[in-house]
C-alpha cells in the first residue's frame, strides 16, 4: 500500500514540510517500516504552538517565586557543578532531553499508549499507577492477575507496600500539586467525550447514532458506556448500555481542541464560555469541562453535511484533562489555545446562589412533599 509513490501529490508535502536536509538517504527504520517518506505527517498546530511558544509564557504566569520549593540562586549554582541532576530535583527541561540514546523508550508501553519521549513516559506511568490503585472490592482482583484468586489481606498489604515503595520515589517527582519546575508545566493529557442518555434503557438502538456522531467528530473508535448504579424507578440495571464515550490522546486531542475553538464554539448561540472551576477538585485538579447542547452538535463540520443520517443527536459532555496542578494553570493553558472562559467570580457567585436557594427550600419535615401547598383553602364541605 505504501510502495506506490505519487510524485506530483507529494511535491506539496516536500515543499512545505521539509528542508534540503530531509532529501538525504532515508534511515533504515523508514525503509523497513513501510512508511512513505514523502507523505505528509500529522502536525497538530496547537501541540507545536504549546511546546515552542506557549510553554514559556505559562511558566512565567504560573511560577511561584515565594514557594518553598523554588530554588535559590545558591542552590542552582551548586547543581551546575554536579552535572546530572536527579529526576526529583531537576529544574530544567533540558535535563529531560539530555538522556543517552540507550535509555530512551523506543517501544510502546504495555499499557497501550505509544510513548515516544520522557515527558509522556512519566505521564503514562503515573496514569498506570492510578489506574491500578482502584479502591473497594475491585482492589483484591488486581492483586493476583494470573488466576484471579483472592489473597488474604496480609498478603495484599505486603504486595501493596512493595508496589508503593517502588513507585513512590518515581511519582513524588511527578506531583500533581504545583511546584515551580519547568517539567511540571501543563499540557493536554486527554480529552474525553461522553454521551449519557437514559432513554436508551428502553431502546438500545438509539445509541448507534450516538456512537457514530462521536466517531464522525473525532475519527477515533467510540465505546458504549454502561450503567454502574442501579435505579429501579428508571428501570436501570447495572451493566446496561446507556451512553457512549470516546477518549482522545495527544496528538488527536490537540486537533480536536483546534476544531472546537475554530469551528464549533463560534457557532454556539448564547454560550457564556467554560467554567474556570474544576468539577472534581479533590480527585484530579486539572480537569475542565463543558457540555455541548443538543441543538449545537449538528454544527460540527463532520456532521452538518450529513445531518439527515443521524436520527437523533445527543448532548456531548467534553472533559479536558490537563497535567496542570492547579485550576489557574489549567485555565491559563486552555485560554492560550483560545478557549473562552467565564469570569471566575461570576461562576462562584452563581454556585453560592444556587446553594442558598437549595438550602432555603429544604425543610426538616419528612411529610412536606405530601402536604397540599395551598393549605389555607380548607377541605371539602
Amino acid at each position, binding site marked *: *500500500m*505504501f510502495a*506506490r*509513490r*505519487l510524485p*506530483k*501529490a*507529494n*511535491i*506539496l*508535502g516536500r*515543499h*512545505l*514540510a*521539509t*528542508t534540503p*536536509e*530531509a532529501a*538525504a538517504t532515508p*534511515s533504515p*527504520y*523508514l525503509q523497513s*517500516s513501510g*512508511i*512513505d*517518506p514523502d*507523505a*505528509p*505527517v*500529522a*502536525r*497538530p*498546530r496547537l501541540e*507545536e504552538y504549546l511546546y*515552542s*511558544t506557549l510553554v514559556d*509564557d505559562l511558566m*512565567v*504566569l504560573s*511560577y511561584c*517565586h515565594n514557594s518553598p520549593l523554588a530554588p535559590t540562586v545558591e542552590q542552582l549554582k551548586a547543581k551546575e557543578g554536579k552535572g546530572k541532576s536527579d529526576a526529583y530535583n531537576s529544574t530544567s527541561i533540558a535535563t529531560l532531553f539530555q538522556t543517552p540514546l540507550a535509555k530512551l523508550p523506543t517501544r*510502546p508501553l504495555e499499557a*497501550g*499508549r*505509544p510513548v*515516544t519521549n520522557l515527558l509522556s513516559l512519566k505521564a503514562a506511568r503515573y496514569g498506570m499507577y492510578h489506574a491500578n490503585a482502584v479502591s473497594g472490592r475491585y482492589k483484591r482482583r488486581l492483586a493476583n492477575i494470573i488466576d484471579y484468586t483472592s489473597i488474604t489481606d496480609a498478603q495484599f498489604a505486603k504486595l501493596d507496600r512493595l508496589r508503593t515503595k517502588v513507585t513512590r520515589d518515581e511519582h513524588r517527582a511527578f506531583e500533581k500539586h504545583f511546584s515551580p519546575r519547568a517539567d511540571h508545566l501543563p499540557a493536554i493529557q486527554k480529552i474525553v467525550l461522553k454521551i449519557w442518555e437514559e432513554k436508551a434503557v428502553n431502546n438500545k438502538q438509539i445509541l448507534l447514532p450516538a456512537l*457514530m456522531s462521536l*466517531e*464522525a467528530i473525532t*475519527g*477515533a*473508535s467510540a465505546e458504549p458506556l454502561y450503567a454502574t448504579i442501579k435505579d429501579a424507578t428508571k428501570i436501570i440495571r447495572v451493566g446496561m448500555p446507556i451512553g457512549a464515550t470516546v477518549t482522545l*490522546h495527544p*496528538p*488527536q486531542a490537540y*486537533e480536536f481542541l483546534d476544531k472546537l475553538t475554530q469551528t464549533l464554539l463560534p457557532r454556539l448561540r448564547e454560550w457564556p464560555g467554560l467554567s474556570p472551576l474544576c468539577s472534581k477538585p479533590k480527585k484530579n485538579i486539572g480537569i475542565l469541562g463543558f457540555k455541548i447542547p443538543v441543538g449545537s452538535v449538528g454544527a460540527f463540520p463532520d456532521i452538518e453535511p*450529513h445531518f439527515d*443520517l443521524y436520527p437523533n443527536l445527543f448532548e456531548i459532555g467534553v472533559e479536558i484533562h490537563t497535567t496542570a496542578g492547579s485550576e489557574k494553570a489549567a485555565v491559563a493553558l486552555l485560554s492560550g489555545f483560545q478557549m473562552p472562559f467565564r469570569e471566575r467570580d461570576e461562576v462562584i457567585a452563581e454556585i453560592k446562589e444556587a446553594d442558598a436557594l437549595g438550602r432555603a427550600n429544604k425543610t426538616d419535615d419528612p411529610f412536606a412533599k405530601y402536604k397540599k401547598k395551598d393549605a389555607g383553602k380548607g377541605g371539602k364541605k
Partner: protein
Amino acid sequence: MKLLVQVLVQRNPVTLKPLSAFDKAYLQYRDALLLKTPGVTKPFLADNFFKRGSLLQTKWLALHADIPHSSPSSPSPSSSSADDELAGVMQTIEATDAVMAERNSDLKSLDRRLSDPVFLTIKSKNLNAWSLPGLMAPLPESELLHEAAKRGLEETCGQNMELWNVGQVPIGHISNEKEKTFIMKQLILSGQVELNTKIASDHAWLTKEEMSTHFDKGYFESIKDLI
C-alpha cells in the same frame, strides 16, 4: 543600587516551522505507532456517509482508491483534478515565497520571519548601541515594575501598539555592582512602533540569531536564555 526596567516585546510565530529530518522521522514514527494502536483511528466506512451502492458512493470510492498513508490525519489526494488544483496552489506558494523573501529583509516589518518569534530592539541615541527598549531613568520607589515597563515602552516606542503583559513578574534580570535591570515580557497583538526620535535612532524586529550579531556579546549572553 539603581533599578532599571527593560521590556522584551515578542511577536509570536505565525506559521509552523519547516521540519528537520529528525523532526520528520520522529513524527512519522509516532504516526506509525498510532496507526498500529487499536481505537485511535477508525477505518473510514463509506456506508456511514453514503447510501450503499449509490452513484455518489461509487464516484467517491474510485477517487480515493489508491492513497498512500503515513499519517492518520493527512491522506494525500491522488486524482487528476486534485493534481491541477495542486499546480495552482504551487504557483500561489511560489508567488508568496517571493513576497515573503522581500518582507524578511525589511527589519521593521511585523510580517517578517513568520515561523520564528521576533523581538523588538531599539538603538538608543545616548549609547549608540542596540538594546531592548525600556525605562531610561532608574525606577522611582512609588512605581511597580510592570507599570514602569509600560510607561517606558510608551515613551520610547509610542502608544500605537496593542500589548499584553505576560504576568506582572519579570522573566529575568541583569545585575552589576551599580545597577539591576529587570526584564519584563510583553506580547504584541497589533499596531506598530512609533519611535521617539529623542530617545532612539532606530528600531528593528529581530530573531534570536540576529540579536546575537546586533547586541554586545556580554549583554546578549545575559539575556539569551530568556528568549
